[in-house]
């Protein structure tokens, strides 16, 4: 359901051309839990932006659920992100001074879903992500890091996306909270969600079933974790 063929991404900065990705091809099936790992500057962030439809490749094709993504315009990319992709960021990226519930409902803004249904759905996702019921009306800046990441996970789930893209989701968390968040991802995967995790920590990548190692813009290794 994710199919990347000969993906190439070149950044031009003045006269200098930098190849962030050169000729990357792989395939991720529904229900997989994949970790993309690599040191900084390896091109894994660029790959995640392309997979998340936040950016388009310079050449090559990216097909998500049978839809060719690399040729879409800005609005079509927005629609695709809203419908098919759930993001979990390292910096949580919640709206400040806004309630937990409204943060989770953010992707449903300007959609046809009625306010009541949106709230219903948001509560469902928050419970699913393991958020305590009593904190739903708290402001986002009153939460701990672990709670913020749960809210972010709930927000990623709200549109029932085809893939959940997590970019260093444990980067700002302590070891104990990281463990809880990673267990949450495993639980989501068990319930059938496709998860793509971007990280530079090998121990975080251990939670995934398959690890793709990126180095200098190419795939170095693509192995299954033995459980």
């Amino acid at each position, binding site marked *: 359901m994710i199919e990347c063929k000969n993906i190439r991404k070149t950044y031009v900065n003045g006269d200098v051309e930098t190849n962030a990705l050169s000729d990357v091809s792989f395939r991720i099936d529904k229900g997989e839990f994949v970790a993309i790992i690599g040191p900084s500057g390896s091109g894994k962030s660029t790959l995640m932006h392309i997979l998340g439809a936040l*950016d388009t490749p310079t050449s090559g094709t990216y097909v998500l659920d049978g839809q060719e993504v690399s040729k879409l315009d800005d609005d079509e990319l927005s629609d695709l992100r809203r419908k098919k992709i759930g993001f979990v960021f390292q910096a949580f*990226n919640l709206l400040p*001074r*806004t309630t937990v519930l409204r943060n989770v409902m*953010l992707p449903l803004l*300007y959609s046809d879903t009625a306010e009541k249904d949106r709230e219903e759905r948001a509560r469902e996702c928050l419970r699913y992500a393991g958020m305590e019921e009593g904190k739903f009306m708290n402001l986002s800046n009153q939460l701990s890091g672990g709670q913020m990441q749960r809210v972010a996970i709930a927000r990623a789930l709200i549109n029932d996306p085809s893939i959940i893209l997590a970019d260093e989701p444990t980067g700002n968390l302590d070891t104990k909270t990281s463990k809880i968040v990673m267990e949450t991802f495993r639980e989501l995967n068990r319930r059938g969600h496709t998860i793509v995790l971007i990280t530079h920590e090998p121990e975080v990548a251990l939670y995934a079933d398959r690890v793709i190692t990126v180095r200098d813009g190419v795939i170095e290794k693509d192995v299954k974790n033995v459980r």
Partner: protein
Amino acid sequence: MVATDLLKETVLSLSSNKVRSSLTVLGIVIGIASVITMVAIGQGAQSSISARIRSIGSNLIIITPGAQRTGGISAGQGSSQSLKLDDATAIGGEVQGISGVAPEDTHRYQVTAKGNNTNTQVIGTVPTYTDIRNVNIDTGTFITEYQQQTSAKVAVLGSAARDDLFGAGADAVGQMIRIKNIDFQVIGVTLSKGGTGFNNADDAIYVPITTEQHYLSGDTYVTTISASAQSADIIPAVQQDISTLLLRRHGISDPTEADFSLVNQADIIATASSVTGTFTILLASIAGISLLVGGIGIMNMMLTTVTERTREIGLRKAVGIRKLHINMQFLMEAVVLTFLGGALGIVLGWVASLLVSHFASLTTQVSMSSILLAFGVSAGVGILFGFYPARRAANLSPMEALRYE
């Protein structure tokens, strides 16, 4: 769905950042209020000066004696004695388009009453003076035709003269005053016209002109003849006719040798307007500068807040909200802030103008054009600089906006 979401999102976004929103609104409020108040003071001054000039009469033509010349040396306008009571009667009888004529013979005398005394102008005049010079009676009556014909020793006090002689607000009707050692009975007091300083219309005593000439000045000359034309557009023609008549009566063939001069109210208003016009330009430039400074303030506030929110815009884009909806929300926020600030600014400017006229006894006049200008500029600047950087941020790719520091 889009409209209600937009409204809700705008309100939530503005209310979740109360300090930021209220500072922006405050900038707009002060910019608008200061412009409105300043223009109101300028326009108030202008209109109160024209109103005061109009209060001396309507469509007035004032005839004064010319300069007295002795061997080529002029003693100045009005110094000669060349106008007589008969001239006034002739103007009233022979010139077309005149609604009234009031001659007056004015001199300053020491006036006493019950141990108080003052030096004031004693105006010898006729009953029609009240209509022509807009004098209104507060208590008692003005000089009557009968008193005029019989040279009765009666006096009508201006309100300031009454205050000086009998005390503020005292009932002077029926009391006696002495002018040049001659007793006059007070028959009325005029309503205050509210002038101040020299030539205060309230600091005067009116007596019949026959009495004045007979007992006080002892001659037959008059110091001023006021004539009022029936309408404003015939003033030049009436003025010309009066001039021709007086030249003939005085036996002068060359108009440049005239022993009298004419001035009409329109000329006085024109002169005064040019003075107050300069004043208004001064205030308008100050207002313009405050508008500029206010505009830059609003621009700064909008630019900073929207730039601060670049990451938020990136997040909105990343979760799949369309560019159009992000633009609409920021435009809406800018519109709500500027209109809220604009409305409060208009109210504050209005209240400030009222306070100025109440406590500083300056007439103020809030004008629609200043409201529109101040509001238009602030709203324009606020919306432009609230919307433009948001649009720029929404055009960035989401991850660029998310990384923005």
